[in-house]
Structures are given as structure tokens and as C-alpha cells.
């Protein structure tokens, strides 16, 4: 058997738990993907570019999107497939999924140039049509993903966040992922982030139109170096123990298992997950262990697993408290938790409840305070005040995007 492509390690803030009372431990699960060997073949990409051409895209935005789309076409070659979908209130399949040969690339580029701005934003229609093309040529050896770009609110077709996120998650389970790109200030960041997160892809906030090409390059760079696909971690929860996942990441519980979805990972990518563990009292000398299994598919479509375990020994409470805490680990966990609270607070702020948003964030900040560095704490407290006073659309989106990246432990 060849070397493992993925590694999983588990570590805790302390290795002891108390006999007399319930103990709360924090466990960090680190997942890291191997660097790409130089000779390695990359995975073929099977993608759909789904571009917003609603009226609001007129001018500089559409020109930048056209430029970025042509740039993506230049990064692909005949191993890859691409479909081109443009949508406003009508969805047009500009080009069916096709291999990116030199001749096809020219045809596709001309089609991109011919895009004209239109009417309303049938985001769901465009997205579903793009997914249809990807699904039609789904490959078990490649990366199958819809890339959805928008600058506006979904105001046609399916517009409900929960419903769109549900479809994205269903498609992710079936092997078709979604990444979402929001341009400017007019789109709904909660909707796009939910679509990408449940869809097993990435979300990007693109503040200025001239950054579109650069962000597409980043996403494509990751897709072109994907080394493992459809990654998830399953944590088996022993009887009597409670395990809670921090960061509001996509997960599900089946019986005594907690399953966390990570999607496709690219070469050298590292992800951190945090769980809070509550152990019941037990006799001194006993132990309790948490087992994590990382499951993934390699580029040949073979599934493989890697395991890691973190075990806690029972000891008198006084001994437990004497043991030093892994403070750095707790600080990292607090930051994930605060990022998740920030997203929740932003949702309240956007819904016109600035007072509640501020209170929620301050409350989380107080809980995290013991482990947080002073500058970070000051930043969050300033953010809470800003939320209380009301935020501009730009602040909202920038804050949301920073929190999204922190929760994902993505740089």
C-alpha cells in the first residue's frame, strides 16, 4: 500500500478527566493533505461556469467576468470539461459541457464575449442548469464542481436559503460540489456561503470587480491540485459522553456517530476541526477514548480511511486541575467559536436586530475571553459595538467573509 495522502491527528487541552464531576475537554482534529508529488497527474476537472448577466452586471462587472471566464478557459486543457451557463431571469445554456480542446476554447471564448446583460436574477435556475451539465459527465476520477457567480439577490426561481442549501447538500452527497462567488455589495452573503458550505465547495466575497480574475485563479489553482475528494471525519461517541462540533460546520449525527464533511482537499491543505467533549464521572483508573475516522476517495476513486484516537484517563479532580492546559489549542478553538458567533450575529444584524447581534457577540466573547489574545479580544469587542450601531453593506460582507474563512480554518 502506498503512502497515505491524508493524515489525521487528534489532541486535547488535557489528557485527564475528573472522577468526581463531569469534565469539559476540547479536542483538536488536524487533517492535512500531502504535498503534490512533482510527477503526479492532476485530476481532470469537470466544471460548469455559471455567470450572472442580470441587468445589474452591466458595464465593468460583466467585462471583468468575461475576462475572468476566458482566463479560466486558458487554465484548462483537453483533459477537462467545461459548460457555460449565463442567467438572468432566463437561463441560457451558452455551451453544453465540452472537452476544452484548443478549437473548443476559441468557440467558448467567443461565446463569453457575446454575453449581454439582461433582466432579473434566476440564480437557482442557472445553478441547477450548471449542475445538470456537470452531473451529465460526472467522473469518479475527477473534480466535479459548479462555479456560480452572482452580484445580486436571487429573486427568481428558488430563493429560500434553507432550500437552496438543502439541494446543494444533496448534490454534494451525490458527488457534485458547488463553489459560489459573490461580487460587489448586492448579493446575499448568507445564501451564497450556505450554498458553498453545504455544497462542499468554497465561498468567495469579491469586493471589487477587478478582483474577479484573481479569485477565479485561486479557486482553479485549488481545483487543479485536488488530491483527495469527498473527505469526511466520523467521530464515534462513547456512551455517556457528549461531543459538540464548534464552528457551525456541515455535519450530521447518525446514532453514536458525528460525521463532519470537508469536501475535496488540495495538495498541502490543512484543516482543523474542534470538538467540545463532556465526560461523565467515573472511577479513578478508568479511561474513555474518542475515535475519529477520516474517510476519503483518492483520484482513482478508491476509498480509504485513516484513524486517530484521543484517550482520557480518569483521575481525582485535584490532579486534573494541576495538569497544565494546552492554551494555544484552546485559543484556536475559541477563535473558531467566535467566528461562528460572528456569522450568527451578522444574521441578526442583517435582519434588523442590532441590539441582539451585539449582545450575542459580547456573550461569546466573554466565554472565550480566558484564552483569547488581548488584540483579538479588543477587535471582537469593537466589532460588537459596530454591530450595535448598524453596519454598512461593505463592512457586513467583509466581516462575514473573514468569519467564513476562520471557521473553515482556511487562509
Amino acid at each position: 500500500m502506498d503512502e497515505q495522502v491524508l493524515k489525521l491527528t487528534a489532541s486535547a487541552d488535557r489528557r485527564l478527566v475528573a472522577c468526581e464531576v463531569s469534565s469539559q475537554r476540547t479536542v483538536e482534529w488536524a487533517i492535512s493533505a500531502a504535498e503534490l508529488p512533482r510527477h503526479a497527474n492532476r485530476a481532470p476537472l469537470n466544471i460548469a461556469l455559471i455567470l450572472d448577466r442580470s441587468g445589474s452586471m452591466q458595464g465593468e462587472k460583466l467585462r471583468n467576468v468575461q475576462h475572468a471566464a476566458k482566463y479560466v478557459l486558458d487554465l484548462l486543457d483537453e483533459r477537462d470539461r467545461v459548460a457555460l451557463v449565463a442567467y438572468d431571469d432566463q437561463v441560457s445554456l451558452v455551451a453544453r459541457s465540452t472537452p476544452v480542446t484548443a478549437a473548443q476554447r476559441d468557440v467558448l471564448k467567443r461565446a463569453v464575449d457575446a454575453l449581454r446583460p439582461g433582466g432579473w436574477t434566476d440564480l437557482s435556475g442557472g445553478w441547477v442548469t450548471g449542475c445538470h451539465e456537470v452531473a451529465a459527465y460526472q467522473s469518479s476520477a475527477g473534480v466535479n464542481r459548479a462555479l456560480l457567480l452572482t452580484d445580486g439577490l436571487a429573486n427568481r426561481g428558488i430563493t429560500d436559503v434553507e432550500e437552496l442549501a438543502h439541494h446543494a447538500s444533496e448534490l454534494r452527497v451525490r458527488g457534485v460540489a458547488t463553489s459560489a462567488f459573490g461580487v460587489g455589495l448586492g448579493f446575499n452573503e448568507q445564501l451564497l456561503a450556505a450554498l458553498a458550505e453545504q455544497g462542499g465547495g468554497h465561498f468567495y466575497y469579491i469586493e471589487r470587480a477587478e478582483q474577479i480574475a484573481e479569485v477565479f485563479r485561486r479557486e482553479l489553482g485549488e481545483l487543479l491540485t485536488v488530491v483527495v475528494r469527498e473527505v469526511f471525519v466520523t467521530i464515534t461517541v462513547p456512551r455517556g459522553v457528549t461531543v459538540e462540533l464548534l464552528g457551525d460546520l456541515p455535519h450530521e449525527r447518525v446514532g453514536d456517530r458525528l460525521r463532519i464533511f470537508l469536501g475535496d482537499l488540495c495538495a498541502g491543505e490543512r484543516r482543523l476541526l474542534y470538538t467540545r467533549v463532556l465526560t461523565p464521572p467515573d472511577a479513578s483508573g478508568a479511561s474513555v477514548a474518542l475515535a475519529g475516522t477520516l474517510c476519503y476517495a483518492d483520484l482513482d476513486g478508491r476509498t480509504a480511511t485513516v484513524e486517530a484516537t484521543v484517550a482520557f484517563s480518569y483521575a481525582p479532580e485535584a490532579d486534573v486541575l494541576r495538569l497544565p492546559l494546552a492554551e494555544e489549542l484552546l485559543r484556536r478553538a475559541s477563535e473558531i467559536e467566535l467566528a461562528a458567533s460572528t456569522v450568527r450575529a451578522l444574521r441578526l444584524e442583517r435582519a434588523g436586530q442590532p441590539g441582539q447581534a451585539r449582545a450575542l457577540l459580547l456573550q461569546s466573547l466573554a466565554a472565550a475571553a480566558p484564552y483569547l489574545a488581548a488584540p483579538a479580544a479588543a477587535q471582537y469587542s469593537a466589532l460588537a459595538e459596530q454591530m450595535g450601531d448598524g453596519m454598512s453593506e461593505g463592512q457586513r460582507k467583509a466581516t462575514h467573509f473573514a468569519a467564513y474563512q476562520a471557521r473553515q480554518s482556511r487562509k
Partner: protein
Amino acid sequence: MAEETLYTIGELAELAGVTPRTIRYYTAEGLLPRPDARGQYALYSPEHLLRLRLIGQLKAGYLPLGAIKARIEHLSADEIRTLLGQQEPPPPPDSAAEYVARLLSAPARQQLAEAPLPYQLPGAPPCGSVAQPQANLAAAAPAQPMPPHRLAEMPAPAPALAVALQAPRAEMAIADADQWRRITIEPGVELHIREPLNDQQRRAVERLIAFGRTLFGRESS
């Protein structure tokens, strides 16, 4: 794989979520290989753990112990790992292509008319929660991810989707500033108009639409 890790019966019992007594029973019944008993304690390997997990899964499927034994007795550690891996998430009932096809084939998808206002579902919502997605979202404070396998119980497109797709046509009712709107004169021929229009422009546009449609042999409705 950390093949060197060995467990005492207590550790193995904790990891597998069973009692030591169960482990001894399974060993006596031949469901588990005997532990390495050369040292002071009997030591169990990661393969014991894998076998215990598989037994747990098969038991959850109401398979009697005799049948479980027959099924796993001759499996290698790798085969067990594969089986466990396969059983991890239950495979979805259909493919991505079938799922998308169902979303696309929902009735009247292509005939949708303009939505009344941005960020609102067209037509009367079936319940309060869909009418105002923003408020709805705030109420559901901790983002609960959707149960991914809900489809098993709910094969048809979600109810809100059906409502969205069968929304009634809304005519020329746009109050939003700087919105583009497209009017189909004939399949493949469209008129693009930037709203809002003043009354004079609106009358002219209406005449233009009516005239355009007569050119293609379609009277305006």
C-alpha cells in the same frame, strides 16, 4: 495505519463502546480472534477494534450473531476496513444527474414570469417562514445543517420549490429602481427594458410589444 498500537481489554471496550464482558463473549464465540496473551495482560490490536465496529454495524441491521460470524470470520483486516468504509454514509438513493433532472423537470419552469420584488418568493407563500427568508433565518439562530439524507423520506422536490415554480404570472408590476426586464416577443426574440418607465414610455413600450407580436403573427394577449 498505526499497527503497533495495542489495547487492553478495558481500552478496547471503551473505544468500541461495548463492555469487556461482551469482548470475552465474542472471543469465546469465535467472532473475534484471540488476543495476544504473551505478556502480563491480554493485548488487542486495531483489527480487533475494526471487527468490533463491524459487528456493531451488522448487529444494528438485526443480523443474528451466528450469521455475523459466518460473514466476517474469513475477512482480512483490509476487507473489513473497506466494508466499514462502504457502510459509512448510506449511499444516496439516486445519482446527481437524476437529482438535478428532477429539479429541472418541475412543472412550468421555463414559463416563469417576473417575480414581484427582489428577494421574495412569487405568489402566496405556503407558510410564514418562506415569506421572509431573512426573518426566518434569524429565528433559526444556530445554523442547523439540513439532514443530508432527508430525501429518503421526501423524494419529491421540496414543497417550497413546487410553490416557487408554479407561481402565478405577475404583470408589469415593478417598482424597483434601475431593473432590467425582458419581454419575449417571440421565442428567440426579446425586448430589453430598463425600469422604471414614465407613463409615456410605458404606453410606447406596450404599443411596441403589441406591434412586435403582430409582426410574428401573434396578437398580444
